[in-house]
């Protein structure tokens, strides 16, 4: 028989509402990292 697994309910206020299909933006590809010092 199938039993429902008890899963702690996540407190509503912890969840950040996100639109459906939200994809975090990729890191900007450029400019690249600084290797010595910023000029």
């Amino acid at each position: 028989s199938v039993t429902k697994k008890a899963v702690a309910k996540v407190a509503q206020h912890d969840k950040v509402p996100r639109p459906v299909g939200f994809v975090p933006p990729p890191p900007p590809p450029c400019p690249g990292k600084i290797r010595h010092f910023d000029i």
Partner: protein
Amino acid sequence: VPAAPPPPLGCDDPEAEAAAEAAVNYINGQSHHGYKFTVNRVKDIRVVPQGPNNAIMFVDLELLETKCPILSPTPLENCTVRTLAEHAVEGDCDVKLQKVDGVFSVIASKCHSHEDSREDIRKVCPDCPLLAKMNNTEVLETVSAALNDYNSKTTDPYLRLLEIGRAQIQYHPGHIVIVEFAVGATNCSAEEAKANVEACQLLPEDQSNFGFCKAVMVKRPSQGLQVDCQLYGHQVPAPDIPLLSWPGVTYAHPGQDTS
């Protein structure tokens, strides 16, 4: 459904780093003056596919001058980058490369370099000596005195001046002139040069022996001159460096040798 276009190449992607390395090695290989430059940052990169395993890449590079003279055999990865307090020199290059079957070749490059602003140096080091102009009289006199001093004491071949690499003058504390210059061995010994310096010419390309000198002239609080020269030994191929230095640099006695 047509394949989605590849995501834009990131400036820190391995392929971008490989393109930057190929570009900076080309730039250093083409240069006959000054010092080697190294990549500080890939500012932008754009890839234009040309077909399978074939692409054109446009790379925008931010470079920094190292302490290695351009003629030095030291590998670029071992060259120390000049710090801001030592009056850094930065370069900007736009390079067009082609990548075919994983091999990069430079099609075109356009670069310009400039010293960091004096205000920026003053922020990090109020008393650091700043770059002086190449044709500053004190600089020319210090280079002449240093080369004469070295040639008068050396058992090596007589050295001629190729170009002044950089010069700094400190006015406080004390009055100090610091110069760096490239030299070439001639077909004379120092003794022979005393007799007839005009006969001393740079060695032919197949025997050329270039080197580099650093000198510090203390004028105040007490007079003093310290010179250190290092010859690289013969390298192949030796680039065709003109005997005199940069266009526009005049010497204390134009046309007269430094001896």
